[in-house]
């Protein structure tokens, strides 16, 4: 299925806005959340550290009080060593003055008092509210191999026993502080003990409630749980028990650090697989370690509540923003759709299609709407103008076509022009740059004289063509009365310059060839000099007096020149449209090229020469726009 939602402009913009806003919100939120969590973590560590220290201190106070009590009473054992039975009283008094101690023994070395037998261990203990005494050592209870006796004896220093479950009657967890007693020779003779129920330990540790779901642990030197939220684990499991099959050695590491008496904290995955912090601190006196485990959920509950609220608010806000964007942008761009429909109609030619109503809006949409309205109006006006202009142009073009036809009809176009004469061959052509041109050629024979001319009117188009027509008419008229080229041109100059307010002029070369004698009289009025050539003689420009173009100065006297043409001589007359024909790279056809081409074509007929020259010019132009009229006239004199 193709996902087309994004094709909607409003949806796309809305999504972009939403994405950018969402990204900014997320980034801001993440920075805030991480900072907040870090801060909470620091506070939690400080709080846990202080609370643990206080708890350890309270535990230590109790343990210390027991140690002090025992140490303070030890001297009595030494003093009354000669009186074994007084040991019961010493133990009893210890209990009387220290309510926390629930039992005390003064356990002697084997056979210390021969009269008392192998075992002698006076023991006072609490029996309900009273204090009872008994002799602890019997065959079935060889106290010499009990931890509380054997370990301090071997270590030869006071020792807090690892807590144990007392099955002798108390049915509670106990620990025993043992103080080895030495005689004057430094030899151990007895171990003075004080039993302590660990109910207070659980209470003191239990009072450490950092978080609603936090729980506390106490482990002994061997890692055995002394306090644990699961009572069945107490004294039956160690902190390492559950780590047998664990790949994660975090808990093992924590256990070792706790046993080593270190203080610190770590992150663990507890039984419920939730991540927890575990803070731990040692009770140095006994080698225990107190730990409090707090789940991340607990520690970061406050931050997480704020996080949840922010997420909900942000999500709702983004949703609202999306709806708002969609609605607003759709409202804004809705006219565009209608405008687009109208524009499509306009584009299809229906310029009068009304634009949809928009109301008064001064925003970009209003500007766009106004611009389209203006464009529609302009287009409509333009189309009207275009229609009129086109009609006008068509009329002008039609007139120009007619003018061109008239103009072309004025110049002789029948070749060979004098089929009855064998002494002259002549060919001419004219190629206007526009519909009508300003170039002119003409020729006629009168009284065995060939009048021929090529002229170029300044400028192009209709003005030039009009002047060309005038020039041609005047030339015909005057040539029939005046026989010399200079006279004809002088008259022509006077006639043209008389009312030449527009300052136009005409360059012209006029030749009169006496066909019987071969004498050529010619006069040049600022025109390009013709090229003279024969089959044997190279083409070269005819030496001409330039004079000035016609129509510039009234009364100018033109100088005439004369030349006798030999048989087979050719003259090539042209206008500057030939030598100045441009190639696409603006290179001129040039006079040199003209001479070169004429040398190449010199043995051809005038028709051939002119046509070949025209082709050479076209090849040179290579499709470039023709900038000036091209006129060529070639005559070949062949006297009989």
């Amino acid at each position: 299925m193709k996902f087309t939602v994004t094709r909607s402009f409003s949806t796309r913009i809305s999504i972009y806005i939403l994405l950018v806003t969402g990204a900014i919100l997320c980034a801001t939120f993440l920075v805030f959340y991480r900072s907040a969590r870090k801060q909470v973590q620091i506070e939690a560590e400080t709080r846990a550290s202080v609370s643990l220290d206080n708890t350890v201190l309270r535990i230590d106070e109790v343990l210390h009080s027991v140690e002090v009590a025992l140490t303070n009473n030890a001297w009595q054992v030494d003093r009354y060593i000669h009186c074994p039975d007084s040991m019961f009283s010493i133990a009893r008094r210890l209990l009387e003055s220290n309510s926390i101690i629930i039992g005390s023994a003064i356990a002697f070395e084997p056979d210390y008092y021969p009269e008392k037998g192998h075992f002698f261990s006076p023991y006072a203990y609490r029996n309900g509210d009273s204090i009872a005494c008994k002799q602890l050592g019997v065959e079935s209870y060889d106290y010499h191999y009990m931890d509380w006796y054997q370990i301090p004896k071997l270590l030869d220093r006071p020792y807090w026993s690892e807590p144990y479950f007392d099955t002798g009657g108390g049915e509670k967890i106990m620990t025993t502080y043992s103080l080895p007693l030495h005689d004057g020779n430094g030899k151990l003779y007895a171990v003075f003990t004080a039993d302590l129920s660990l109910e207070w330990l659980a209470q003191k540790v239990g009072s450490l409630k950092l978080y609603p779901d936090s729980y506390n642990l106490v482990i002994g030197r061997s890692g055995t749980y002394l306090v644990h939220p699961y009572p069945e684990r107490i004294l039956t499991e160690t902190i390492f028990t559950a780590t047998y099959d664990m790949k994660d050695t975090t808990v093992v590491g924590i256990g070792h650090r706790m046993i080593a008496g270190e203080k610190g904290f770590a992150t663990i995955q507890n039984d419920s697989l939730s991540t927890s912090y575990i803070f731990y601190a040692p009770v140095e006196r006994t080698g225990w370690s107190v730990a409090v485990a707090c789940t991340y959920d607990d520690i970061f509950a406050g931050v997480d509540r704020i996080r949840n609220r922010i997420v909900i608010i942000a999500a709702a806000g983004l949703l609202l923003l999306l709806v708002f964007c969609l609605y607003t942008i759709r409202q804004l761009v809705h006219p565009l759709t209608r405008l687009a429909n109208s524009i499509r109609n306009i584009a299809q030619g229906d310029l009068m299609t009304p634009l949809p109503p928009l109301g008064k809006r001064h925003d970009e949409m209003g500007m766009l709407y106004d611009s389209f309205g203006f464009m529609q109006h302009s287009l409509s006006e333009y189309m009207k103008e275009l229609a009129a202009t086109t009609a006008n142009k068509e009329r002008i073009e039609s007139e120009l076509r007619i003018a061109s036809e008239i103009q072309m009809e004025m110049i002789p176009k029948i070749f060979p022009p004098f089929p009855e004469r064998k002494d002259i061959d002549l060919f001419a052509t004219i190629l206007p740059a526009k519909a009508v041109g300003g170039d002119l050629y003409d020729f006629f024979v009168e009284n065995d004289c060939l009048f021929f001319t090529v002229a170029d009117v300044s400028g192009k188009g209709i003005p030039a063509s009009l002047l060309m027509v005038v020039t041609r008419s005047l030339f015909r008229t005057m040539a029939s009365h005046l026989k010399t080229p200079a006279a004809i041109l002088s008259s022509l100059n006077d006639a043209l310059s008389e009312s030449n307010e527009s300052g136009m002029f005409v360059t012209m070369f006029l030749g009169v060839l006496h066909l019987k004698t071969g004498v050529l009289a010619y006069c040049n009025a600022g025109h390009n000099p013709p090229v003279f050539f024969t089959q044997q003689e190279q083409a070269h420009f005819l030496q001409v007096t330039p004079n000035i173009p016609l129509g510039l100065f009234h009364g100018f006297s033109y100088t005439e020149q004369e030349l006798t043409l030999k048989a087979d001589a050719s003259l090539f007359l042209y206008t500057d449209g030939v030598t100045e024909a441009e190639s696409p790279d603006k290179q001129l056809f040039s006079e040199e090229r003209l001479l070169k081409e004429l040398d190449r074509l010199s043995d051809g007929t005038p028709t051939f020469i002119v046509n070949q020259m025209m082709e050479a010019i076209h090849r040179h132009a290579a499709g470039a726009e023709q900038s000036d009229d091209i006129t060529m006239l070639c005559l070949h004199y062949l006297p009989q």
Partner: protein
Amino acid sequence: MKIYRCIFLYLFGIWGIVGNIYGQSERIVFTPQWTPQSQFAGYYVAQAKGFYQEEGLEVVFDHPSASSSALNRLEEGSSHIIGLQLIQAIKLIGDGVPLVNILQTSQRNSLMIVPRYNDIRSLEDLRGKKVGVWKAGFCELAYMLDRREKLNIEWIPFINYVNLFVSGAIDATVAMSFNEYLQILACGIQPQHVFYFSDFGYDIPEDGLYVTADYYRTHQKAVQAFARASVKGWKWAAQHPQETLDIVMRLVRKYHVATNRLQQQRMLENVLELQCERHTTTRPFRLQPEHVEKASALLLDDGYIHRPVTYQEITGAL
């Protein structure tokens, strides 16, 4: 009437058979070596699953205490069948206490010395050190090794070794691989060097069941039935370890033994492994003559006994 008479006779017959069985059921008091743990799982299973009852036995478990060992119970006559290690049994027989092995479960030796600190890397490093041993016994092999290697070890008898070991009051302890060693590991202590007695030429099998020669003579069928049911119990335990652990843990809780299920699971796995001959997975459940011969020779050489004890003698064949 005929039908009623048949039903009556049928019911009377069943009553008679049941009554006969109950009337003949033998009461046997059994004392394993130590307090309840997976080391004796097969016997607990046989009791719990009624295998003893099926053999017509009424078995009472009477666990020993620190002050009253299984042997004391046997000598007093309060227990009929006890658990003993082979080396102890041969020593007792050699000392003139006539005992008969009725079932040998262990086929390998689990005894080891575990140093407290890792600076003890060889037996030589134990020279003159304090090493813990059970006060209740089981340590003949340890003393033999000490004498053979002339280590002059100061043996410290203990009842409960864990705290003694952890506190550093002793430099090393003798341990069973399926029991004390596992507890040491559970204390987070990971010894780098341990010494198995089996690696020093003392691969003598351990746990077996014993009765006095007199009792064996007079109650041969009963003790054989007890052995059969016990083997059945052990086989069932090997096939159903979790249910077996359930049974063991019920007893552990009843007797307030400070242990846990995971610990007992490890012990069960280890004990079941020790019941297989080395490099095999089969449990023969019987005494091998060469093991008796070797144990007897060791004790004789070391002066514990003054005459050899034979396989025939210990199995009651004489």
